[in-house]
């Protein structure tokens, strides 16, 4: 077994102090939350830090609260906390369900949502669904706070848009409404998903017409992609939307920057997008999936 290289753990009393520590240590320090991905990368010498700044000791960052039609999830909440939260299960059940299927129970008991999003591992589930739920994140530093859509956080595979000294502190997820239909499905035969597909629909009349739609696909490319062009085809009468699903899937695949990797060829992933758009659509509108 490879032992980790030597480092110190710093315990900030507040987000401002954590930000100052980041500024002070520069490249020598990283924010440490669950550590499920960070420690693995450090063990393999892909990353190396002299200081880990423990976000979990800062009070309040592991809370989940409801406010004005949104759920605020502290960045240090574990996946397990989120999947078991009665608030999330009630207000945005599709996200609670997704969280209950992240990796395995040990990763969920340790890994945090904030860490997952900042690490931006390409084969990760939550970001894809948060894109279609219209989530935002709070970024704090000694200079102040800014709130940005989740699209603006992820920069690429293992890359985020945080500036030096900035820390993701909370994830804001709009609550579901009775006229929303949403689902997330993934395809997984290895340790990590090969594809994840998130779909959100707004309906006027109990599901016969869709007035707005958002769709995103993850794991098949360096980072999850929303497909605005395809979303246009997901609005209108249900019959029309269903008829156009193959074209819609093709548009999602076109915009997703599909890559050939050990999970499969780009062509194979294009096929998966087609299969899983249909399955996710049927799940979202509440039908049994036969295939």
């Amino acid at each position, binding site marked *: *077994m*490879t*032992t*980790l*290289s*030597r*480092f*110190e*753990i710093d315990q900030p009393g507040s987000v401002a102090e954590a930000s100052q520590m980041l500024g002070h240590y520069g490249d020598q320090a990283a924010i440490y939350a669950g*550590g*499920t991905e960070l*420690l*693995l990368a450090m*063990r393999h010498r892909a990353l190396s830090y002299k200081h*880990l700044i423990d976000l979990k000791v800062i009070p309040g960052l592991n809370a989940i609260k409801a406010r004005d039609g949104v759920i605020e999830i502290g960045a240090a909440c574990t996946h*397990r906390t989120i999947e078991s939260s009665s608030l999330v299960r009630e207000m945005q059940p599709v996200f609670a369900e997704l969280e209950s299927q992240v*990796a*395995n*129970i*040990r*990763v969920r*008991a*340790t890994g945090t949502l904030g860490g997952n999003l900042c690490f931006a591992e390409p084969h990760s589930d939550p970001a894809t669904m948060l894109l279609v739920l219209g989530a935002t994140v709070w970024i704090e530093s000694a200079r102040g706070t800014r709130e940005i859509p989740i699209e603006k956080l992820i920069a690429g595979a293992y890359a985020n848009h945080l500036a030096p000294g900035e820390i993701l502190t909370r994830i804001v997820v709009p609550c579901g409404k009775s006229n929303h239909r949403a689902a997330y499905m993934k395809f997984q035969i290895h*340790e990590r998903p090969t594809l994840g597909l998130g779909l959100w629909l707004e309906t006027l009349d109990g599901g016969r017409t869709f007035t707005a739609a958002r769709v995103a696909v993850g794991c098949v490319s360096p980072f999850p992609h929303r497909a605005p062009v395809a979303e246009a085809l997901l609005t209108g009468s249900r019959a029309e939307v269903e008829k156009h699903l193959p074209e819609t899937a093709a548009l999602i695949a076109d915009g997703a920057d599909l890559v050939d990797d050990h999970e499969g060829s780009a062509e194979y992933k294009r096929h998966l997008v087609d299969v899983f758009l249909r399955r996710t659509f049927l799940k979202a509108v509440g039908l049994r999936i036969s295939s």
Partner: protein
Amino acid sequence: MKIGFELNGKAASLEIEPRETLAEVLRARCRLTGVKLSCEAQVCGSCTVLVDGLPVSACTYLAYEIRDKRVTTIEGLADPPGRLHPLQQAFLDHFAFQCGFCTPGMILAAKSLLDENVHVSDEEIIAYMSGNLCRCTGYLGILKAIRQASAEMKATWKENRSTS
């Protein structure tokens, strides 16, 4: 740094380095070699131990995290006189192992599941246990063993409730 924690029901304290993993500390310093190391990437579940009742991968989990928490390893499951935990007995009864390398992790993960909800369905058992891998004997014996332990623990739970 010095940390205090509870190890298999007893108070413990240790001087640790921040970089030490829980598996390193438990195996090399506490001599609890029931904690197995295999994939070392949080995938296989051999190194599962419980921290405050929840399973973690001790291979990639810093010992720093157990300060003021309860740690349970396979060595802490049997009663002091040596009476096996219902899960341990059920694994024996159903021959739910072959080489036994995955067994400590399997039993601890299952304990966490049943401690949280003893009324589990097969589907829930399979979903919860999907992160613990066995490479010898297959999963049916394991499923049967957890089912049996669940039934026994349910009966004990009812008995305790009626006598209290």
